[in-house]
């Protein structure tokens, strides 16, 4: 960003405490080599390089123009009158304050993307995903060649588990094992997105609130978007219903793909069910603390927060061949019957992929953990 690197005022230590307002020209003596107010005129800026002597002056057009533009910009800036709101004066412990700012910025970057993904925060959590992916779940990802190296695509996956580990693993699979190392933007259900702590963290590492407007904007920008159409119902699936796909919402993802002409890539995730087998769920107190239910798993809530850690099941992630809906045209998004039929076809396809992956496992019970 060009506007971030313009030197506006000198970073003088001496004016931190003093009465000098750096915008007031007379606040500091003129540095040697500059000619004072007469030459710099309206500027009053001591960081401007001295005007060269006529002897060594040579017309340099590009630089000259840049200088004129810079002068114009500064003139514009000078129109902001000096005003004695100098907030630094309210903080007598200047050094402490500077150190505090530096510490507060640790682990976060001062530039995030439009949807709030913070590159530095993402890097900070990378080790955790890598551990879960490679060591804990020993994820076996196949079919990554179906994910395009650039351009928009909509990943549609099944959903399970008390916490959205599956979206994290789909994200990490593409970032780690795909040759283009693309970032997947998972759409996160409202209930998870507004959970304290978890929601903001998911937002910082790339999660986006599941909203048609957000998804459309991401796809228009050529991003990879992952949706979990089962949504909350998928996450609340009980152990007895494992690997049985729930209704795929209202087919919103199909409309999205039709409107943005993005190919749909079906994704089957196997293993999330065993990572957090939900034996039951309690709803009576949950609404009071802002979540749809309290899960009951073999470890939660018996072990406290540690019970939210997933069991080390063996995972398989399979990416299917892309389904192009582009030739149907954007008008097809209004055809409800068609949308519903496509949604159901995709659901059946993912169910078949899941069944295939389950068949690959050696035995139905222990295999979930041993692979």
């Amino acid at each position, binding site marked *: 960003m060009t506007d971030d690197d313009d030197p506006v005022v*000198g*970073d003088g230590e001496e004016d931190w405490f003093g009465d000098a307002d750096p915008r007031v020209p007379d606040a500091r003596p003129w540095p040697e080599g500059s000619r004072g107010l007469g030459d710099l005129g309206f500027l009053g800026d001591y960081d401007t390089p001295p005007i060269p002597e006529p002897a060594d002056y040579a017309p340099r057009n590009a630089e000259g123009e840049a200088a004129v533009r810079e002068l114009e910009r500064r003139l514009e800036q000078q129109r*902001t009158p000096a005003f004695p709101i100098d907030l630094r004066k309210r903080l007598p412990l200047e050094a402490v304050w500077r150190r505090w700012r530096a510490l507060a910025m*640790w682990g976060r970057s001062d530039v995030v993307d439009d*949807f*709030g993904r913070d590159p530095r925060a993402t890097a900070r959590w990378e080790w955790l995903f890598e551990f879960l992916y490679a060591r804990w779940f020993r994820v076996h990802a196949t079919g990554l060649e179906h994910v395009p190296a650039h351009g928009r695509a909509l990943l549609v996956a099944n959903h399970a588990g008390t916490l959205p580990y599956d979206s994290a693993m789909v994200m990490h699979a593409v970032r780690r094992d795909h040759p283009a190392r693309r970032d997947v933007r998972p759409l996160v259900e409202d209930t998870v997105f*507004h959970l304290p702590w978890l929601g*903001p963290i998911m937002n910082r590492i790339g999660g986006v609130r599941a909203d048609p*407007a957000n998804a459309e*904007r991401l796809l228009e920008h050529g991003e990879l978007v992952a949706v979990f159409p089962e949504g909350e119902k998928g996450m609340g699936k009980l152990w007895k219903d494992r690997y049985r796909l729930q209704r795929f919402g209202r087919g919103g993802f199909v409309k999205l793909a039709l409107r943005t002409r993005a190919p749909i890539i079906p994704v089957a995730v196997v293993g999330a069910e065993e990572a957090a087998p939900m034996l039951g769920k309690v709803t009576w107190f949950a609404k009071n603390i802002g979540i749809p239910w309290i899960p009951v798993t073999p470890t939660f809530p018996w072990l406290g927060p540690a019970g939210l850690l997933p069991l080390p099941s063996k995972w398989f992630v399979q990416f299917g061949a892309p389904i192009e809906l582009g030739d149907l045209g954007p008008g097809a998004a209004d055809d409800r019957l068609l949308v519903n039929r496509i949604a159901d076809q995709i659901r059946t396809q993912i169910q078949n992929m899941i069944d295939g992956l389950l068949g690959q496992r050696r035995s139905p019970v222990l295999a979930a953990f041993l692979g």
Partner: protein
Amino acid sequence: MAPSQSRVVAVTGACTFLGGELLRRLEEDPRYGRVLALDVRPPAQVGGKVEFVKLDLTQPSVDGELATLLQRANVDTFVHGAFLAHPTHAAEWAHELEDVGTMHVLNACAGVEPRRFVMVSTTLVYGANPKNPNFLTEDAELRGHRDSRFVNDKVRAERQVQRFAKEHPNTQVCVLRFAPILGPTISNLYTRFFSRVVAPVMMGHDPLMQFVHEQDAAWALQRAVDSDATGPFNIVGKGVLPYTTVLALLGRVPVPMPQIVARQLTKVLWATQLVGSPPSFLDFLLYLCVADGARARRELGFAPRLSIKRTILDFLGVAPEDGATDIARAIT
């Protein structure tokens, strides 16, 4: 288009930051012949083309007075900027000024039908809501805020202006919804809030925030007066940042607290006039209220020049390289 030399502009709220900046810019612009500054006290820019006319929008008979004035001066463009920048305890008076004052202004304009009507609004009218998309376009519903009179008066004023636009197709009506304005000279709800050493953080929540630099905002208002574009426009800065990152850049001390505690505490502090932000403002620290500036870029020709980081540092009065070197030093 009116003949170029004779453009007459009337500005309400001439003593506000945006009003003052507009007067200054119009004074320098040769296309404008005369500028009427309407306010209860004279602005700093009086002189030259700028004439001060004392006008109190809370007076019941002000609309007739204003209509006569507009008629006599043959006003070409009317800029309505008499809105409060921070919430006040004098809620009745604020309502008279913003909601009823807008009615008076529109009554006067209905008779005169100026060529152009520009209104200053804010993106707060969309309201902070858990259902908001990441970027609110101009078509989004104006939800306002359930118990913030500060925001709701502006929503009501906007609705009146929308109705006026429908009923008076001869007048080009343009509404500018400014994101929270930050800068070294402006004073508003957000600058006061961020001037405190400590700032409340809703435990576990960290919404994205958006600001516009005061000079960008003033430029946008000037563009709106110059151009022929109609309809609502979001005037927003470049980029977004999470709330806690904003606090970190500002070097403020975040105080995380549970929502219930924060609300009760703010209620008490607001009632005792110890803080300038009412309890309803806390929702803007919980949920997104970020607008999309694409329409302004497309139709108004306004694109912000300063990034959010630069805006924050300029508000703070710190050279941009300052924080960066500090951070680098802390990490290495």
